[in-house]
């Protein structure tokens, strides 16, 4: 069978979503919401189909890496960069996850955004959302299919842009819909944090180019695997600069701070970009750069530690959060820590495996959380209308409506409770996701997390212990969340009136739930069941699979169950009452205050970096540039010197005595001469002509006599 025609479809990965984007850009205002959503979902769906075909072709072709060139990009001297699609087992894995989960979320978003734009009275912005989503898919595809570090970087920044646009989708308000700078601040923060990471990426690219002569993956890896490069300061430097990029994109310490704020975006965005796909790009980057990291063991250790510390650190913060999405956000940071730690240790398969399963269950959790939030909004909406029926004046109605929204936060778990009965489908889906995240057998999360722990246990004991404790916290905060949201009594009227979401939202969730349950099957830790591992071997080379270890699995499962039990003791046995403080507050004291306030990291950054920079730039602009360069140097020194010179040196000495006198004399002389000559001007043209003729005659006479 000829596989070339399939590979030639590769550009569709990018162009299909771009087409969807353009169609919605041009016609989105005229089309109905269903059509807009369908077009966008279809575009994303085409990407998924192409990904499947490419995967199939790759498998059929024996896993040999295929490059599909599209066009020339930057060719300057020895710098040769092209738009080329790289199809290998690693990139197709990412493509499948991104386009698969992406398509499901597109479909879900049709239902979600339809209601969201109505709650926010901005129906016109429906199409814009799908334009951004398609742009994201396109950028993500560029990222995963790029054949060089720079094409990858295009996608890398592209998804950063989409993240900015989508976090700031409701740019004129905060998460509660009040007019505010909060959402746009969050968007800006995300972009800038990513840019800091990108700075590291760029420097790494420069180092690669000037030492390996290329930015194309294979050339770079060839250079990195040469003997002189192994563990040299150069490879360590490159990998550490890349780590900075990873920390920015995959929200690791110290740049993770943007991700929790990114929850300002609509929930499908949080699910797609800030949980399932974009944030895993860093993990992908490390896996992609495997030969580079293999050459720098020192860097590997640092990567693993970064991941492990982040995993634990973020998990502790998640315990102290009240916002349903914030809990999930910190959970994402924590899980990304797991993945980064895995790929850092060289356990690429484990890392990628966790990436895939995490994409399934975290997307499921976020989307379910979105369903919960909308359920509450619906309840709140009914409530508001019930109130308004009493009031007659339409003007007042709008006003009081806004007032009401100000006080109600549909994302706050303290406003929920008892949703199990009013939103049963969502409840069960949420349970599946939570169990998968907590790592309970036999859900997908169990298998992937177990594999990471297994590798850590063998090679990096410190990482193993950090991750195990993080896993304990994971189970605990998920338990806390479940009890607070779904059990007990409704703590607000809105929660009591909450309503289940429509099919367009729940059906994609069911697919994701199924994947969360069965996803573990991709790579079971038994001989012969390492499908994902063998698949990735095509790209990563021979992989050692650690044997299944019952103690590791047992310890983590036991810890998870214990954590859930403790959370039941605290939150399930005696459900939280409205207005009651968190039961952890008393026993933990200032520790819990730290968790609640994210250990004051944001405040620290403000004090150490952001405010000093603002002050510095203000100082440079006002004092140095304006007062010193502009006013002092230019206006005082240069202009003043000039004035001084002209006043003192010229005016007082030269001018008054020399030039002035001469000028006066000249004036008088001119006056006298003109008085005399003017008599010749009698005004008759003919006499002027006569004078001219006389001149001619005289000149001719002179010529004769000469």
């Amino acid at each position: 069978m000829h596989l070339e025609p399939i590979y030639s479809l590769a550009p569709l990965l990018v162009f299909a979503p771009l087409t969807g984007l353009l169609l919605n850009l041009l016609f989105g205002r005229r089309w109905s919401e269903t059509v807009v959503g369908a077009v966008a979902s279809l575009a994303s769906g085409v990407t998924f189909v192409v990904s499947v075909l490419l995967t199939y072709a790759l498998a059929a072709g024996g896993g040999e890496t295929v490059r599909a060139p599209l066009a020339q990009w930057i060719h300057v001297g020895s710098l040769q960069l092209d738009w080329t699609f790289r199809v290998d087992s690693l990139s197709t894995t990412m493509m499948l996850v991104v386009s698969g989960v992406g398509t499901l979320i597109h479909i879900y978003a049709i239902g979600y955004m339809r209601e969201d734009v109505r709650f926010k009275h901005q129906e016109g912005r429906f199409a814009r959302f799908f334009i951004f989503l398609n742009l994201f898919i396109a950028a993500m595809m560029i990222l995963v299919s790029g054949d060089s570090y720079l094409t990858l970087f295009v996608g890398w920044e592209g998804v950063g842009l989409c993240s900015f646009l989508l976090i700031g989708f409701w740019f004129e308000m905060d998460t509660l819909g009040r007019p505010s700078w909060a959402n746009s601040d969050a968007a800006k923060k995300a972009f800038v944090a990513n840019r800091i990471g990108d700075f590291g990426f760029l420097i790494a690219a420069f180092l690669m180019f000037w030492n390996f002569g290329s930015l194309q993956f294979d050339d770079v890896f060839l250079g990195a695997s040469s003997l002189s490069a192994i563990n040299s300061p150069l490879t360590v430097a490159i990998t550490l600069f890349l780590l900075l990029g990873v920390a920015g994109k995959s929200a690791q310490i110290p740049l993770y701070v943007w991700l929790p704020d990114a929850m300002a975006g609509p929930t499908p965005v949080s699910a797609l970009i800030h949980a399932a796909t974009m944030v895993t790009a860093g993990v992908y980057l490390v896996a992609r750069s495997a030969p580079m990291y293999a050459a720098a063991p020192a860097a590997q250790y640092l990567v693993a530690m970064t991941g492990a510390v982040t995993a634990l650190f973020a998990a502790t913060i998640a315990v102290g959060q009240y916002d349903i999405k914030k809990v999930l956000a910190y959970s994402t940071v924590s899980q990304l820590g797991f993945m980064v730690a895995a790929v850092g240790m060289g356990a690429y398969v484990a890392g990628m495996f966790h990436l895939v399963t995490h994409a399934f269950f975290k997307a499921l959790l976020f989307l379910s959380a979105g369903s919960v939030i909308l359920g509450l909004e619906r309840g709140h909406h009914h409530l508001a209308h019930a109130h308004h029926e009493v009031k007659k004046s339409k003007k007042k109605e709008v006003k009081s409506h806004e007032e009401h929204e100000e006080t109600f936060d549909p994302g706050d778990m303290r406003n929920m409770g008892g949703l199990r009965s009013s939103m049963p489908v969502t409840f069960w889906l949420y349970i599946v996701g939570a169990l998968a995240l907590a790592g309970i057998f036999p859900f997908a999360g169990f298998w992937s997390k177990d594999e990471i722990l297994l590798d850590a246990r063998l090679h990096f004991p410190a990482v193993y212990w950090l991750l195990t404790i993080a896993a304990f916290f994971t189970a605990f905060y998920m338990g806390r969340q479940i009890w607070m949201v779904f059990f007990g009594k409704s703590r607000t009227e809105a929660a009591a009136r909450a309503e289940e979401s429509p099919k367009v939202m729940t059906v994609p969730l069911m697919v994701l739930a199924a994947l969360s349950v069965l996803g573990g099957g991709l790579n079971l830790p038994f001989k012969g069941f390492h499908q994902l591992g063998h698949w990735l071997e095509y790209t990563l080379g021979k992989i050692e699979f650690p044997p299944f270890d019952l103690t590791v699995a047992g310890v983590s499962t036991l810890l998870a169950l214990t954590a859930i039990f403790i959370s039941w003791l605290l939150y399930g046995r005696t459900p939280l009452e409205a207005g009651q403080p968190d039961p952890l507050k008393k026993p933990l004291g200032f520790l819990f205050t730290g968790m609640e306030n994210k250990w004051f990291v944001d405040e620290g950054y403000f004090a150490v970096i952001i405010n000093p920079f603002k002050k510095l730039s203000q100082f440079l602009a006002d004092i140095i540039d304006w007062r010193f360069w502009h006013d002092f140097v230019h206006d005082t020194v240069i202009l003043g010197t000039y004035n001084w010179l002209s006043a003192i040196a010229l005016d007082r000495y030269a001018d008054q005595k020399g030039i002035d006198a001469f000028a006066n004399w000249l004036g008088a002389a001119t006056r006298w001469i003109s008085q005399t000559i003017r008599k010749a001007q009698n005004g008759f043209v003919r006499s002027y002509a006569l004078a001219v003729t006389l001149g001619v005659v005289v000149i001719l006479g002179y010529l004769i006599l000469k």
Partner: protein
Amino acid sequence: MTSELLVFLVLSLVAIASALGMLFSRNAIYSALFLVLNFVTVAVFYLTLGAPFIAMSQITVYAGAIMVLFLFVIMLLGAERMTAPNALPWQRPLAFLLAITLTVESVYLILTRAKPDTVIAAPDAATNSMESLREMAMTLFDKFLLPFEVTSILLLAAMVGAIVLAKKERAGSKS
């Protein structure tokens, strides 16, 4: 005395006579007509000098267009006589004196200082052919292209100037 010289002398006389006629006619219309005669004579000289194109231009542009313009203006203004007394009575004899001196001087200079006499032969047939005209055109549009283009701007300027001067002032357009 050859026939060529005879023709030249006769034509010269006509030219000088018509020039003087232009000068001394009381009526401006006569002056103009004398001048036309003078131009035509000069055109014939051009022919004998092997410049047929210039001769044609002379007749069409000068004798034709320019003089017609003169006549128009004379008719427009009325060929009026000068009634006012001459403001510069002493100028007239001085002018004659100068003119005669000028003539004498220049003739003397030409005869004594000019290069040895080139004999002007009558133009051959080739001079009056299209080929010669073509060559002249080539010179004009290649070597003298810039002056040629500048001439067009000059004519444009003259045209605009004439229109601006001659057109009626619209009421109120002058601020």
